[in-house]
């Protein structure tokens, strides 16, 4: 098994700690070494490229990419936002000599930017053999239907992130299926959830996320699976606000991809941090087959 540099990003270090925990847990089970980047900083998220001329949108991720370059050939960024920022910086650095010089000038060192940037889905697909997962899962998820939600920045722009089909991403499915879960037909799998508007322009989030939850329910899903902490925040943390704003009574759990894999492996909801979500996953959890431990 390979070792990866690991870029958690701000969310996984704070409000999405359960994502970090479950990711580490699953990686450990499959013997994937995670080497957290030394002294990493914020990737810049959405505001950086959109403010102060946008230069920060390159510099902040470039610094992390540069650090990653010191250790392993690939760096994994579970957060879809971080992943996108790193890929974007890499793309720009690759094709723009001037930019490379500029970044080197700020970092006081020639920038290392060729480390391969992978997403957690990519990494799992690479490192986890579906058959091995199936063997360990023992059909625990057989009763469960999932709406796989990819969001927008994970797959877009396609020529930069080069991850799956931007019109119909499916990369989560092989492992989830191997774990026994049913994947529903979910037409909103790559619509936007409202992004970072939660604080300053709530109505956008409420409307966008409401459609996503509604469609996932319509598809017959027991839960939404995501890989983005911001999406998670909008869909899970704000689900009650959405219910209030739109007079709905949604109660649809939203799980991280790594949490679902963890459940398949027989990890407890507590270990995976599922109990830290705003929407209770109890109804889903009772559907998990009680089988021998992992």
């Amino acid at each position, binding site marked *: 098994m390979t070792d990866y540099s690991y870029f958690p990003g701000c969310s996984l270090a704070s409000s999405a700690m359960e994502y970090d925990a479950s990711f580490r847990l699953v990686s450990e089970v499959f013997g994937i070494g995670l080497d957290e980047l030394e002294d990493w900083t914020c990737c810049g998220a959405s505001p950086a490229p959109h403010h*102060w001329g946008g230069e920060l949108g390159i510099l902040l991720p470039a610094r992390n990419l540069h650090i990653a370059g010191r250790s392993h050939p690939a760096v994994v960024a579970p957060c879809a936002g971080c992943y996108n920022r790193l890929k974007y910086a890499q793309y720009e650095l690759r094709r723009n000599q001037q930019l490379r010089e500029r970044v080197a*000038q700020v970092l006081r060192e020639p920038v290392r930017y060729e480390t391969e940037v992978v997403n957690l889905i990519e990494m799992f697909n690479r490192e986890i053999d579906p058959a091995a997962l199936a063997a360990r899962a023992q059909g625990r998820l057989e009763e469960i239907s999932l709406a796989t939600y990819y969001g927008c920045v994970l797959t877009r722009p396609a020529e930069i992130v080069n991850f799956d089909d931007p019109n119909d991403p499916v990369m989560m499915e092989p492992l989830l299926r191997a774990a026994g879960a049913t994947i529903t037909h979910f037409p909103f799998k790559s619509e936007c959830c409202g992004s970072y508007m939660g604080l300053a*322009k709530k109505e956008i989030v409420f409307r966008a996320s409401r459609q996503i939850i509604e469609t996932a329910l319509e598809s017959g899903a027991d839960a939404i699976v995501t890989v983005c902490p911001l999406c998670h925040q909008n869909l899970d943390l704000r689900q009650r606000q959405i219910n209030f704003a739109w007079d709905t009574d949604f109660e649809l759990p939203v799980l991280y991809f790594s949490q679902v894999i963890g459940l398949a492996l027989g990890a407890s909801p507590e270990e995976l941090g599922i109990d830290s979500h705003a929407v209770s996953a109890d109804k889903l959890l009772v559907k998990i087959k009680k089988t021998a431990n992992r």
Partner: protein
Amino acid sequence: MINLSRSVSAGAPIISEIERRSGQQISACYQCGRCTSTCAGSFAFDYSPHRLMRLLQFGMVEEVLRSRTAQLCLDCMTCSLRCPMSIDVAAVIDTAKAIADEMGFKDTERDLRLFRRGFLKNVRRHGRLHEAGLLSWFNIRTRKFTNDLSLVPLLMRKKKIHVVPPRIRNKHEMRRIFREINGAGKPR
């Protein structure tokens, strides 16, 4: 009333700047509206994405730069993904936003600008985002003291919110990065 013979030529320099920076051709848009149909935010915009493209085609630069659309666009790129003419609409809007910043059009969506600024300031200070700090800073600056307050007990209970900010070691490098960028309107 738009006077086309004037607006088109008056807007031309900025339009070509937008085209150059975004790498997109404004005249390729044939106004099918698919960008708008698919946009998660357009209901909150003053100009839906296709109308914004139209205004650009007509050289109505100031309307675009002052628009709420330029600020509110989520950059989710759904429009770009679905545009039948393969126009990266999000890039066009994004470029317009950048130019608006540079040209000092600052009156629209002040809260949102404030949020973005607060976010970056927060990152400059701590190296990583301190979510609790950003929330309270934003609420105080916008005088919306109850904004998202309902979420706080939950976050506290689940231990998802940290009162103590994160720390990184190489703080000077962070400072330097922020110091050396030349963006318009950045804090000194």
